[in-house]
């Protein structure tokens, strides 16, 4: 009897064993790549890295709801797992870190500022909430062209919801019932500013009410729950029923970036207090309990992922930087004289 309570039947929201294992793999790849960025920075091999530890549940869940080849993702710089989850190869993450010529941006952009039009990923800006208006513009284009069954997934952190452009975006999308899902990855910290210094409310979804769109809160450490909520919101958007604001709660376990020292603004105790939210061990435990993976499977998976990340690290590191003359390319279409 006790055992039955410990392992209730999993509400899997239509996700197959294969999808659940893919989600676990995505989370482990994300964490491994994340850690690799910090390691490479501390080794002096790359100038900068951004982490996403704690966001893996949101990324793995949301990526499963994304329709590849149809939907568009307007990501921000902490979305490494989401970008991997919709099909970006791990090599691209390493090419971005090493700023190599083979990086899609040609080594121009900061790490984690990906672009991939083929996968439907908009070019990432460092400017908080700048991508929200772009996401709405893409959704507006879908509506004007009557491209039904397509939606835009727009992601951002809690700090973005204090920006004017975020409010303009949500308002415009609500007025025109645009096919866009606003997914807030609320990790409680906007760099060094805690949530209570960002807003006088506890839940970001309260902001949805003022603009007339539904707001749904979800445990961001639970990838299945995230999948269920984001999938329903994307389906709603694709059906022409308008936008949704989803707030996925999580916790940021690393400093904002390798250039940030979080010891100056939060205690180690606070981080440890939130450790129970760590989505990776939680999801491992769940899949183990459900018999979807074995302990050996997980150990083998981690070994295989580490080997893959090691391989793409070596591959990216061995590739060349862009030629200096690449500085002058793609300012405009055609030729441009940069030394007038």
């Amino acid at each position: 009897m006790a055992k039955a309570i410990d392992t209730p039947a999993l509400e899997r929201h239509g996700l197959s064993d294969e999808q659940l294992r893919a989600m676990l793999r995505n989370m482990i790849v994300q964490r491994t790549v994340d850690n690799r960025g910090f390691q490479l920075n501390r080794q002096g091999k790359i100038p900068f890295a951004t982490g996403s530890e704690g966001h893996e549940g949101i990324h793995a869940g949301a990526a499963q709801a994304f329709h590849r080849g149809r939907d568009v993702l307007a990501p921000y710089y902490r979305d490494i797992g989401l970008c991997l989850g919709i099909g970006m190869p791990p090599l691209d993450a390493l090419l971005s870190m090493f700023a190599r010529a083979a990086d899609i941006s040609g080594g121009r952009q900061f790490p984690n500022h990906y672009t991939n039009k083929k996968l439907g990923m908009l070019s990432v800006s460092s400017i908080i909430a700048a991508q929200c208006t772009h996401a709405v513009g893409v959704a507006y284009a879908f509506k004007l062209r009557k491209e039904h069954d397509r939606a835009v997934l727009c992601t951002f952190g809690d700090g973005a919801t204090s920006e004017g452009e975020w409010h303009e975006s949500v308002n415009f999308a609500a007025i025109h019932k645009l096919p866009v899902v606003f997914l807030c990855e609320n990790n409680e910290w906007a760099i060094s500013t805690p949530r209570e210094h960002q807003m006088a409310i506890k839940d970001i979804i309260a902001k949805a009410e003022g603009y007339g769109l539904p707001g749904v809160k979800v445990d961001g450490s639970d990838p299945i729950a995230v999948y269920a909520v984001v999938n329903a919101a994307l389906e709603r958007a694709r059906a022409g029923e308008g936008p949704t604001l989803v707030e996925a709660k999580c916790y940021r376990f690393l400093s904002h970036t390798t250039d940030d020292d979080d010891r100056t603004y939060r205690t180690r105790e606070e981080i440890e207090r939130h450790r129970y939210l760590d989505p990776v061990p939680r999801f491992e435990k769940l899949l183990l309990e459900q018999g979807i993976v074995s302990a050996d499977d997980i150990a083998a998976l981690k070994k295989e992922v580490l080997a893959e990340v090691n391989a793409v690290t070596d591959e990216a590191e061995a590739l060349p930087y862009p030629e200096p003359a690449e500085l002058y390319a793609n300012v405009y279409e055609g030729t441009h004289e940069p030394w007038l």
Partner: protein
Amino acid sequence: MGIAIGMAMEGLRPIAEIQFADFIYPAFNQIVGEAAKTRYRSNGDYTCPLVIRTPYGGGIRGALSHSVSIEALFYHVPGLKIVAPSFPADIKGLLNAAIEDPDPVLFLEHKKTYRSVKGEVPTGHYTIPIGKADVKKAGTQLTVVSYGLYVHQALDAAQQLEAEGHSVEVIDLRSIRPMDRTTILESVRKTRKLLIIHEDNKFGGIGAEISAMVVEDAFFDLDAPIRRLCGPDVPAMGYALTLEEEFMIPTSRMAEAMRDLVAF
């Protein structure tokens, strides 16, 4: 503005309209940080074929928030194109060119020309290349470079000089970025004197760039110091007629400056 950028990145050809150029400042981030850098930062993965139409300039009792010139705030930005035509036929041709352009174009329309300037417009579709100035009046003794409303006044002043027996060449820039260096330099090498006229304030304005360019490339062709006749260094023109008139440059002052330079 960001919504229009998203539409452009998704393959549409949006025309974003800013009701008055003075209201463009909240969109500065999107225009400078996003639209102008879309192609560059994605290394050509994404482009931003966007047109931003906006009425600028004063002389219409528009006061502080309906009179400013904004071109100098944007002409420093690689990735953007800026046009400011002043004749109806040029406006049509350049607007078509801007819409067809694969990169973001800031399309400036001087408010006072809406009702004060008339001209024939060819029927049918045509374009005028962005980046090409137009010699609106040929002359031999002095080159005047201007754009917007002041091109019309400069032409009137040049006609006065003509009546006085002097030959003045008037160039309408039409495009501010990219700028037609060839037309300006060829003209200055011929006339050996240059007067730059614009409504925007002088310090750090378009005239400073034209002046630097001519000094760098045609210094030994000059017979007189370059002169700039521009707006004063104040935040804006006031609402009161006296304040507005003090800001704007009357045709008589343009003619005076032309006479001075011709006689130098």
